[in-house]
């Protein structure tokens, strides 16, 4: 889940990282008051969960509180990328000697976070990494062992930063790394990290993304920031189909039928198990299939929950068939899922043998599950058929139906 900049600044400040004087306002009058308190020139920034603020006119500079108020009024009424601002951040326009980049991001390939530092801040780090790779320092670190400041120092030093700047930037990057782990972030970024004329460092902008599944663990932080439970903070608003998926998951405590994501294809997916969802989704696409949805079902859902998800997918306009596929399951019962998807078909008036393109869930209670599938004439596969092959068969079937 994403945080607004004003929230990210609070998170950074709570971690002991200095930030430039700033305040959050939801009205132009409040913005004026904050600008007066700050004194001197300010920057008024739209608080939207989308990029391109500067280009869209969502960031303006003000020399006086009057100007700050006028800019805030304009920005508060300005839609950016389909988003109306939550408010404005009134930030002091600091006297910057040098801009740096400090970030921590999850590296899915290494399954470890990586700290990044550059002495070329204020621009996209991807751009710097491409055009000036020698100006980007990086280093992976463990989420299990305690983080040591020297790891941050090494990364900073790799960019050629030395002396006092190195000494002062090191604790900031180290705190960012610790914050990343403690707050379950997937991205923690300060850009720019500004070195001021007096040699001190402050965070001038911050960007934080937290693991969505960490919300219960970070309840206290979210409450402190005023983030409501109803706020999804995803890259886009959930569709009615996805909201209905959440309702299916919430109707019963047993198992999971989550992360229902809508696509516009004709093959409905009831997929899951230990990363199997992503693999199967990719496999369907690799074979030229057009998924109607993504989802993650597992953890031994009730028949009711499996049926609820299958019904939701079957009723989605444009869905011709569903493919029920998982990797090998140990904590989800094959027979229970089989009952659920067959029940969904029957209750909707469909023939399960027609509507279920393939059922490929090997694992716990598979013999019982296969008896049920046979009874209803549903094509099924055991572990001797790979997930890729099962996806191919499903795509082939729906191709024949189209």
């Amino acid at each position: 889940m994403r945080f607004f900049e004003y929230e990210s600044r609070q998170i950074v400040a709570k971690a002991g990282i200095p930030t430039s004087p700033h305040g959050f306002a939801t009205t132009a009058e409040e913005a004026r008051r904050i600008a007066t308190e700050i004194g001197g020139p300010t920057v008024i920034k739209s608080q939207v969960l989308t990029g391109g603020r500067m280009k869209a006119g969502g960031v303006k500079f003000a020399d006086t509180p009057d100007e700050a108020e006028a800019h805030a009024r304009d920005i508060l009424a300005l839609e950016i990328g389909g988003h109306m601002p939550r408010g404005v951040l009134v930030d002091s326009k600091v006297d910057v000697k040098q801009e740096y980049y400090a970030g921590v991001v999850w590296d899915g390939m290494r399954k470890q976070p990586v700290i990044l530092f550059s002495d070329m801040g204020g621009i996209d780090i991807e751009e710097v990494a491409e055009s000036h790779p020698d100006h980007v320092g990086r280093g992976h670190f463990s989420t299990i062992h305690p983080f040591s400041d020297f790891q941050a120092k090494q990364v900073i030093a790799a960019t050629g930063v030395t002396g006092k700047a190195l000494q002062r930037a090191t604790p900031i990057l180290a705190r960012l790394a610790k914050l990343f782990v403690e707050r379950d972030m997937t991205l923690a970024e300060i850009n720019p990290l500004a070195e001021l004329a007096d040699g001190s460092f402050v965070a001038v902008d911050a960007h934080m993304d937290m693991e969505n599944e960490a919300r219960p663990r970070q309840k206290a932080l979210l409450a402190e920031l005023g983030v409501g439970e109803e706020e999804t903070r995803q890259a886009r608003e959930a569709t009615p189909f996805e909201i209905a998926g959440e309702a299916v998951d919430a109707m019963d405590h047993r198992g999971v039928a989550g992360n229902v994501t809508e696509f516009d294809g004709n093959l409905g997916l009831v997929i899951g198990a230990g990363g199997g969802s992503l693999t199967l989704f990719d496999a369907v696409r690799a074979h030229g299939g057009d998924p109607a949805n993504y989802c993650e079902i597992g953890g031994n859902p009730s028949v009711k929950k499996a049926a609820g998800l299958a019904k939701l997918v079957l009723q989605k306009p444009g869905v011709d068939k569903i493919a029920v596929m998982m990797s090998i399951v140990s904590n989800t019962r094959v027979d229970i899922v089989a009952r659920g998807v067959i029940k969904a078909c029957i209750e909707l008036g469909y023939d399960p043998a027609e509507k279920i393109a393939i059922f490929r869930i090997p694992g716990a209670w598979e013999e019982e599950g296969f008896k049920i599938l046979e009874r209803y004439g549903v094509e099924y596969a055991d572990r001797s058929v790979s997930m890729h092959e099962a996806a191919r068969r499903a795509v082939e079937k729906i191709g024949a139906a189209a």
Partner: protein
Amino acid sequence: MPGLFIDVEVAPEVASDPAYAARLEEVCPVDIYAVGPDGGVTVVEENLDECVLCRLCLDATPEGTVRVKKLYEDGATL
């Protein structure tokens, strides 16, 4: 609505016994049995298909008095 996959039959002497009703309600992990208004056993039809074939209801009652039938297997009993 009766179960699509599972059905249960409870013999009259168990079905009318409040002690067995309470025991069945307690042991069934998916709430197929409940104590009815008369104190006897009530079968909650909407939960029948949730049966996990755990046999706890069979263990809680005298042999042969509760029968769990797999309708997808021509009524074979547990």
